[in-house]
């Protein structure tokens, strides 16, 4: 999944060079709400203009290039709200962009070839999407408010209605989401035989790969940046 041979991104590099090397970085810019027309600005400059800590930007950008964040990397409280905003933006991308796109492609496929197999794929995807939506809602209604209250007040016994945030539940959801997506790709590549419709099926597969890529980075940001930062605040308090 991760393109090999990518370079490790540094603040002095031109952002345009990074995009030209790996176009999937555009997804990241969209989640950061940074315009794609980056002239010949360095990463450091783009970060300053958009009020994003360079260290955080570099960590996330390198995730897109296939390098996991260094455990020594230091993130600050200021990063917290930026990360949450980034994750919320990616939710919008999944819910209003990627999933409808995939759903649309499956419908088109069904129109061309009304077979039982595709109907089953459609049903599989709908059930899967319902699960994903449930998880994204959980993040927005339980997890993110928990993290926000943590940074605002240092308070970490927040109950939201009846649900309490749990890191374990968070992890279980993620692995479920990733494994069903893998199931779908495997079904289309190995088992469901369809005749023709190659362009449509290619679009569908590209979409699935792109979604999988971004979802994986999404959960790595949570696992390697957000949760460790939250745990640090829980342990040491806001000014520790």
């Amino acid at each position, binding site marked *: *999944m*991760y393109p*090999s041979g990518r370079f490790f991104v540094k603040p002095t590099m031109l952002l345009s060079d990074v995009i030209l090397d790996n176009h999937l970085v555009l997804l990241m810019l969209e989640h950061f709400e940074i315009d794609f027309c980056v002239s010949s600005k360095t990463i450091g400059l783009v970060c300053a203009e958009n009020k994003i800590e360079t260290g955080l930007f570099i960590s996330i950008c390198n*995730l897109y290039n*296939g*390098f*996991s964040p260094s455990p020594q990397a230091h993130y600050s409280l200021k990063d917290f709200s930026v990360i949450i905003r980034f994750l919320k933006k990616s939710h919008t991308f999944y819910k209003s962009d990627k999933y409808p796109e995939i759903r649309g492609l499956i419908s088109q496929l069904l129109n061309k070839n009304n077979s*039982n*197999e595709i109907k*089953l*794929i459609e*049903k*599989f995807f709908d*059930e899967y999407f319902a699960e994903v939506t449930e998880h994204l809602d959980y993040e927005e209604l339980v997890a993110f408010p928990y993290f926000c209250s943590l940074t605002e007040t240092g308070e970490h016994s927040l109950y939201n209605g009846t649900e309490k945030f749990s890191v374990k539940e968070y992890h279980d959801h993620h692995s479920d989401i990733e*494994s*069903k997506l*893998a*199931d*779908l790709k*495997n*079904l289309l590549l*190995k*088992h*469901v*035989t369809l005749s023709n419709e190659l362009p449509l099926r290619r679009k569908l597969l590209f979409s699935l790969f792109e979604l999988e890529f971004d979802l994986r980075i999404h959960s*790595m940001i949570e696992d390697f940046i957000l949760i460790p930062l939250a745990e640090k605040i829980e342990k040491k308090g806001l000014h520790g």
Partner: protein
Amino acid sequence: MDKSRLNIGIIEPSHIVFEGLSNILVQTDFHCIIKRLYDLAELENPMMKVAFDIVILNPAVIQNKLKEFRRVKKNKPSIHWLGLIYSFYDQEVLSLLDDVITVLDTQERILQIVSKVSLVSAATSLTKNSEGLTERETDVLKQLIKGFSNKEIADHLNISVHTVMSHRKNITQKTGIKSQSGLTIYAITQKIVTLNNLPPHE
């Protein structure tokens, strides 16, 4: 010979040696995909999606980390470990590896060693990916998609829960599919069940 794909990781601090070895390896009959690794920890990194068949390492990177190496080796049983030697090492270090290449070996000798371990892995990967499930795995699959638990399946088929779990693991390995709904679609496309004899949807 089957030109199966070999994922080879090389942990070697010297860039010159790494480049030289890669150059030799890509000339084998195998489809070698070579990735340079910087330390053992990279193998356990969740970002690492590559399942390595062979890891060639300079024993210097493990000689002070034998405990870590034993753990990685235990967690990654499918990897064949080759040492790349250009100085003296303690026998204890070398005994942990499957075989060694020395920096003075001829090209033929290196290819021979790699072919030897890769033949083993080609054979295992062939059985791993072999099409179709066994009769017993098919029985388990049919029960699975009816929504029975491991315990129930064990009772119905008169086998142990442990055996059921091992069949399930093989099914997932062969089909690439984990979820019950995904397996149902698989079973239908393979005509193991038909739509009509599926249980009514809950």
